[in-house]
Every structure is written in structure tokens, then in C-alpha cells.
């Protein structure tokens, strides 16, 4: 109709041009949208220094190699955010950086794609922990006891979590992460439980009460931190004399800010891997598998470890690190580790994490 009417009129070149432009836009738009969809991967990481390292070691080289553009987003590793997207079928992300507990729960609930990783080219055997069909471990980090060696010089620093609890010998505040998971385990270590037995003790009857009772002793002396950078800032400013902190943060503080923070690995540390998982029904599933396979190779994981000081879950990456770096990452100290891994850990935290999050919030605010 519109076209015949234009023909009947005198030729109006301005009008024709306008129609032409609109037609061109309509023709190009869907193609453009499809093209950009095909070569994109939506990625959600943890933000901060960790995501910056992932960008350098994983995302940028992957894009350069494959031409697949990775669009980054950040989130605070809450399964609820993944659940909301999968439940409603409105997926914002393809790949997420997930904690071990998220992988356990999400895999059971069907929130992540199950993939035959060996078929996708991942050297599953090389990993220092079992690889779930739902995710591939990409970074291994530890929560450690750390103090400022400029404050406690020579041999005068704390040696154990018992020392951490000893406010007579080491007066001053202590920093702990604001949440139940690592905190309850640390309380048990301070109560004399060997690190590798803490999962069993916590899961046994009375274990949780024992941990809370131990925490109660230290409660007035605790400053709670909520982000990794906060823990380092509290230690640097002297608000706390010692703190629990992520080992990569200590690595960064010593390297970039020239601090003299000392990690007491032998006190016992909480160790966990974060993994990359694919959301169920992800639009770019094939690209996501390619990406994860890329991040699983020793080269990439070693590069990541060098930047941030967290360990590579692929043990072959260790051979690519120098001795100095190796001493600074968790894998050299695993005999002192509580691992957030295995059936005892999984069963206990799957059932109890919500309840303990609520109980912890109640306890801490009393």
C-alpha cells in the first residue's frame, strides 16, 4: 500500500531516502544481532583482583585465540542469583565462577549443565581433586592466619590458632571473615582439632555448638571483615593485630604494597577451589565449553597463579612455576589444610549452610 502510494505521488527523494534507510536498518538489524550473539560469551566472575587476574590469564588470551568475545559481569557467588535465572529461563550468563558448595548444590538441583569434560579436551586426571561433571576447578585458595611481621618481629609472632585466641599474650583485635563457613572451622582448629579432622567434627553431633562456644570466647576481640581488601586494610592500619585472610590477598599486599605480612601456614588453613560452571540452558554452551577447556590447561592456570598467588588446581601447572612462587601458594602446605571438599563436607554444608548462615547472623548480632 505504502509503496503504491509513493509511486502515485510525484517522486519525493527525501521521503524515498527515509524509507530506504528504514528498510536497510530493518534488514541489517537481525543479522547484526545474530552475528554478535554467535561470537559472545557471557561471563560472571567475583570481581576485584581475582577477576582482573582471570581477565589477563584466561579471558583475553581466549578471545585472542578464538575470536569469541567474552562479556564480563560480576556477582557475589550466591546460588540464588543463578537459580533465579535458570528458574525463569532468562539467562544473563553462560559461565559463572562458583564456589565448591555452589557446585555441589547446583549440580544436584540441575542448575548447571553436565559435561563430559574429558571429551571436551580437559585433562581430568591431572587435577588434584575430583572434577565434577558440572564444573572444572580453576583456582585454589586458602584462608590463612596472617600477621604484620613489622609489628611482631623475629620469632615473636603468633604460631597457631590457639595463639590467635590468646588475647593475654597478643593483645589487640583479630580479623575474621564475616560468615559461618571458614569461621566455624577455624574455631575448631583453635579448640585443638587437627585441620583434616575439622569437617568430621563439625558434622558430628555437638560439633557446631562446640565451634560456636569457642568463638564466643573470642567474640569481644573480633573485627569482622566482608571483603578481601578489607582484611588487608584492617591489618595494614593496625585495627587488628592478626587476621584470617585469603592467601592471594596477602601475596598482593606484599608484592604491590610492599607490606611485610607473614602467613602462618602451619597453624592450619581453610582451602577451597573455585570452578567454572555452565548455566543450564546456556545460549552459548559450546563456546562456554571451549572457554572452560581453555582455562583448564597448565599454561593458563600457571599464568593465573603467577598473577594472583592462588594455586592452580591442575597439578601439571605447578611444574611451570618457580620455587619461590610455589612456596607461596596453598599446594605446598596441604598437610595443614582443611579442604572444603568431599562427601562429609558436602553433605553437611548442603543441609546446613542456610541454617548456619542464619544462626551465625543471630549469634554475631547478639
Amino acid at each position, binding site marked *: 500500500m505504502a509503496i503504491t502510494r509513493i509511486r502515485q505521488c510525484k517522486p519525493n527523494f527525501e521521503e524515498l531516502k527515509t524509507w530506504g534507510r528504514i528498510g536497510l536498518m530493518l534488514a541489517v538489524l537481525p543479522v547484526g544481532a545474530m552475528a554478535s550473539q554467535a561470537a559472545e560469551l557471557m561471563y560472571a566472575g567475583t570481581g576485584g583482583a581475582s577477576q582482573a587476574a582471570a581477565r589477563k590469564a584466561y579471558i583475553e588470551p581466549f578471545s585472542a585465540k578464538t575470536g569469541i568475545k567474552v562479556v564480563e559481569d560480576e556477582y557475589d557467588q*550466591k546460588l540464588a542469583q543463578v537459580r533465579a535465572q535458570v528458574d525463569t529461563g532468562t539467562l544473563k550468563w553462560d559461565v559463572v565462577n562458583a564456589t565448591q558448595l555452589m557446585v555441589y548444590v547446583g549440580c*544436584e538441583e540441575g542448575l548447571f549443565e553436565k559435561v563430559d569434560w574429558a571429551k571436551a579436551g580437559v585433562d581430568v586426571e591431572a587435577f588434584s581433586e575430583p572434577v565434577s561433571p558440572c564444573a572444572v576447578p580453576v583456582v585454589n585458595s586458602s584462608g590463612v592466619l596472617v600477621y604484620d611481621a613489622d609489628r611482631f618481629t623475629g620469632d615473636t609472632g603468633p604460631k597457631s590458632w590457639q595463639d590467635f585466641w590468646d588475647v593475654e599474650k597478643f593483645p589487640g583485635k583479630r580479623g575474621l571473615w564475616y560468615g559461618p563457613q571458614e569461621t566455624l572451622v577455624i574455631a575448631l582448629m583453635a579448640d585443638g582439632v587437627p585441620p583434616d579432622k575439622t569437617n568430621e567434627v563439625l558434622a558430628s553431633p555437638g560439633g557446631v555448638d562446640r565451634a560456636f562456644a569457642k568463638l564466643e570466647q573470642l567474640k569481644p576481640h573480633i573485627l*569482622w571483615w566482608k571483603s578481601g581488601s578489607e582484611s588487608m586494610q584492617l591489618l595494614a592500619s593496625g585495627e587488628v593485630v592478626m587476621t584470617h585472610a585469603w592467601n592471594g590477598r596477602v601475596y598482593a599486599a606484599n608484592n604491590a604494597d610492599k607490606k611485610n605480612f607473614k602467613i602462618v601456614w602451619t597453624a592450619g588453613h581453610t582451602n577451597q577451589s573455585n570452578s567454572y560452571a555452565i548455566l543450564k540452558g546456556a545460549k552459548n554452551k559450546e563456546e562456554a565449553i571451549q572457554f572452560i577447556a581453555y582455562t583448564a590447561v597448565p599454561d593458563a592456570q600457571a599464568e593465573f597463579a603467577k598473577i594472583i598467588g592462588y594455586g592452580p588446581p591442575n597439578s601439571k601447572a605447578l611444574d611451570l612455576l618457580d620455587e619461590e612462587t610455589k612456596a607461596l601458594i596453598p599446594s605446598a602446605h596441604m598437610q595443614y589444610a582443611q579442604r572444603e571438599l568431599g562427601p562429609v563436607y558436602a553433605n553437611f554444608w548442603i543441609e546446613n549452610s542456610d541454617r548456619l548462615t542464619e544462626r551465625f547472623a543471630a549469634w554475631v548480632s547478639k
Partner: protein
Amino acid sequence: MLLVSPALALVAAIFLLPMLGFLSEAFRTDEVRAALPHTTTALRQWDRGGLPDDEAFIAVASDLARLADIPAAAIARRLNASEAGLRSLIIRTREAALASPGLTAEGIRMLDPRWNEQRTWSILETETRIATPSFLLAAIDREIAPEGGIARLPPERAIFQVVLGRTFLISLLVTLGCVIIGFPVAYALVTAPDRLAAILILFVLLPFWTSALVRSAAWVVLLQREGLVNQFLLRIGAIDEPAALIFNRIGVLVAMIHVQLPLFVLPLLSVMRRVSPDLMRAAASLGAPPVTAFLQVYLPQVMPGVVAGALLVFTISLGYYITPALVGGPGDQMLSWFVAIYTNQTVNWGMAGALGIILVLSVGVVLGVLSLLQGTDAWKAQ
């Protein structure tokens, strides 16, 4: 009435309805009832004495077998919020029911000892009633005992009476602080020459226009251990070592009073402006000393402004979240902080809704009592 109907419609659509929907999460059970219809029917015949009939066991298995992955997980999570461990019970039972369709009641009993516990069935029964009182009870530190009746929650879970008391206390202290600081400010603004008043009111309004995040961050810089306030106090020798001014109650009160002050000053200001200065002069000419004139002539006239401002500050403080979260310690968190935990972290919307109801009721009670005390005339005077 016609004039305000667009406003009413807007409020209803974007505020009242969503809010009621959220609050109704506190007692809704339709999610569970829709997922477990046979169980719901079977448990209506159970009297909570001992275990229910075989029929209920088979109903649970057949209900679970019909559910898809994601709704099944949702039910498992929801029941787990009532009792840790029910999640795995539901998931394992569903797996067994899917594997062997003809699962008997005896088979389910063998599957997991928790099916032989009256407590498990008691929770299922509560969750499949038309409406559940569990969340509202938990919000006042109570629960339904397995044998029926209402019992206190164990001490490690009982927290909300303490938190509600704290919420009222902090709000009250903030209101008091605003009255003490704000009244002289408002009086100065009214009596000052116009140009000076314009500058002064800018100081009052500035925090009002600044984002809560910026304001709170500024207080952290000022009040921290090596912050400006501590450095100053150390230099003049008022203290020997840095005082704890932030991440505790002091920090919360200072920051909240700062934020709320304009809300007190502005209503008071508008009332004070209408009081003629001639009245004070008249009182003085009749022989009243300044204090008497102030108390008997001035104060009664500006009282509606004080009450309106204080009420505004108090009710808004009751729902405060962001400032205590940023400048308070764990022991200074108010009720809305727990609403946030239940909404975002543990996704326990029943609990979040129940706490929301407590908060709304508290505000309602305060407003109701005060409007009774004030009488309707005082309200109209404003």
C-alpha cells in the same frame, strides 16, 4: 476523593500491592500444597499422634515422583528451612520413587529413618495447611512444638525480640538526638537574617541531597582509628589512645542523626515561621521572664512541628538498613538487616515476609498511639 484517586491508584499499584504480596509470603503455603497435593489431602486425616497411615507415605512418594527437578529442589529447600536435613530426605526419597514406581510405605520407611520420626511429619503437616504460622512465630522467637502447641525457640535461634528492642532503642536515640540538635538549628534559621538563613539551610539540606553511601563512607574516614577525629583528640590530649568511634553504636548514632536531621528540621521550620514574634514580645510586656514566655507561649505553638518531625524521624529510622550496615558493628544491626539476609542470602522469603510484618505493625502501633495522644485537631493544624 476524585482528586486524589490517581495518586491512590498509583500507590496501590506500585507500592501497596507488591508490599502485600511480599508480606503474604510469611504465611503462604500454596507452593508446597501445589507440589504435594496427595500428601496435603492425606495429612488432613492425621491427628499428629504417632505416625500417619501408609496412605500418607505413598502420597509423598507419588507426589515427589511427579515433580520436575527444579520444583522438587524448591520444595526440598523450603522444608529444609524448617528443619536442617529435610532437603536430602526429600531429594533421596524422590530419587527412590523415580527409580521404583511401585514404592510401598514399608519401602519408604526403610529408605530413611527420618520418615519414622513424628517431627518430620509434623513439619510436613504444618507446611501443607492452608496457611502456615511457622514464620510469624519464628519472628517472635516461637515455634510449633512437634506435639502441637507453641514453644519458645532454642536460645541460639531466638534473636528477634532482642533485635526488635534494639531497633526501637536506636530509633528512639536518633530521634532524641535530632530533637536536641535540630530544635536550636530550626530556631536559629527562623531568627537569622535572610541571607545568613539561606546559607545555614544549605548546611541542613546538603546531607539530604548526598547519597547514603557517600555520607557513610565519609563518616568512616572521619571516625576510624587513625581518622581525623581521633587524630584531633589525640593531639589536644583528650585521649591517650585512639577511641573506637566507628563500627559500633556510636558510629551508627552519629551517622543516622546526620542523615535524619533535615527530616526533623524542615517540618519544624515551617511551623516556627508561622509563629509571630509579636507574641513573645507581648508576653514579655506582660511581665513574663524569657524562660516562662518560651515555655508557655512559644513552645506550645511549635509543638506540632516538633511532634511531626520526631515522628517522621522515628518511623523512618525503624526501617533503616544501609547506614547501620556500613558504619555499625554486628551488634548494631536492626530488623531490616535481617530482612535483607533472608531475602538475598538464604532466600527464605517466608521469614523475610514475617519480619516485614513485624516492622509494619510496629510502625502502625507507634503512629496509632501517637495520633491518639495528639488528638485529631493537632494533626489538622499542620
